[in-house]
């Protein structure tokens, strides 16, 4: 009991010291309009396709390097691992980016704000145009509505990925892996790859 009290007090004193240190840290005020506009633009426009693209672009520089320096496995396994990592990144990023991008674009057609539906549209067309429009939509909050479309498009793309990952990603990764392994073997014979 006593020991527990001591540890609770210790944790709370660390918490208080941390908060006090935070309070005394100087605040940062972003002055430049260019920076502010860029930050706001990223918040508004960058969503899951951009995230996937950035992850893929950085992955191709970082992951093969880490795999190649994994000295816990023999050189041959390392080479296959590097080939597969590169293949996986290329296949995954390509399909992931285009699916997310396509679905987010496509979702717009089915999520028109209620006020933008033409009055003379047929009932079925009206239903389709607002099929994914949220009933609680605040039409003045355009940013919030765009974030919703991004989220909905991404969710639908994930549903599609249940199939495309097996039908496109996996075979594409396999083909690329084998191509990279063949490339390694060919250059190994010539003595180009060490």
């Amino acid at each position, binding site marked *: 009991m006593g020991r527990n009290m001591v540890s609770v007090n210790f944790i709370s004193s660390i918490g208080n010291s941390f*908060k006090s240190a*935070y*309070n005394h*840290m100087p*605040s*940062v*005020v*972003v*002055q430049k309009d260019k920076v*502010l506009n*860029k*930050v*706001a633009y990223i*918040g*508004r426009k*960058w*969503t*899951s396709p951009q*995230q996937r693209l950035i992850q893929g672009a*950085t*992955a191709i520089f*970082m*992951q093969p390097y*880490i*795999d190649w320096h*994994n000295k*816990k*496995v023999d050189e*041959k*396994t390392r080479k*296959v*691992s590097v080939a*597969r*990592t590169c293949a996986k990144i290329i296949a*995954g990023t390509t399909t*992931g980016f285009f699916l997310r991008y396509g679905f987010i674009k496509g979702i717009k057609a089915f999520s028109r704000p209620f006020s933008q539906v033409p009055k003379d549209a047929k009932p079925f067309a009206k239903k389709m145009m607002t099929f994914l429009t949220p*009933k*609680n939509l605040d039409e003045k*909050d355009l*940013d919030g509505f765009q*974030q*919703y479309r*991004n*989220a*909905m498009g*991404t*969710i639908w793309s*994930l549903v599609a*990925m*249940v199939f495309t*990952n*097996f039908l496109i*990603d*996996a075979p594409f*990764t*396999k083909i690329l*892996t*084998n191509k990279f392994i*063949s490339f390694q*073997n060919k250059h190994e014979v010539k003595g180009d790859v060490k």
Partner: protein
Amino acid sequence: MKSPFRSLTPSAIYAKYRNDPGNMLVHTGVIGWILSSAAQIFAIAINDKISPKEKMFLIPQEMADAVVNCLSFYTFTSGVKFIGKKLTQTGKLRTAELTELLKERNLVLEKGAERVKDKVYAGDWNFNITKLDDYKSKIEDIYKPFNNGVEVITGLIGSVISSNLITPIFRNHYAAYKQKDLIKHADKKGIPVENTPNLPAQKVSFADYQKLIYSRPFNKSGNMKV
């Protein structure tokens, strides 16, 4: 009882993510990694040109990748994103326009000024800009685009570090250990795993791989279940 599908209706998604693009990226990112890893395990298993020995490294590598990636993506990325949100919400990181608004409300501690005891200033841990009385009417339009941008940027930084640095290091350690372990047991069972040339290679089906995995007593294993 509420159906889990109710949280996937347009209205529920709108309510959840309209003001929270950073969280949406984390949640959908985790699901994306799970789906991607399942397909990648399938891709290795069906690849005839990868030898059994390499499969014994690559399949555990992919499983470890899935588990570590999801955990690190969710915890680390959420953590970095939390820092971004905390910085903007407390006003520690703010725009010049917001500073003016906060100064008008006497919430900015000027350089060299005495701190009033128990008063919470902008930039303090307990300060929350969204809890100000006139937040909705006067502050939200200026604060929200900046906060959303910071959240997305910090979320991206977190996701790049977790997926491209933390995950590969951990998964490689685990997969190397698993490969050694599996080779030891394959030798005992007489399953060939020698380093055969990649082209052309010996066919080892996923069923064979599974047979090998399950041939081991479970109480001895640190088997990872995905």
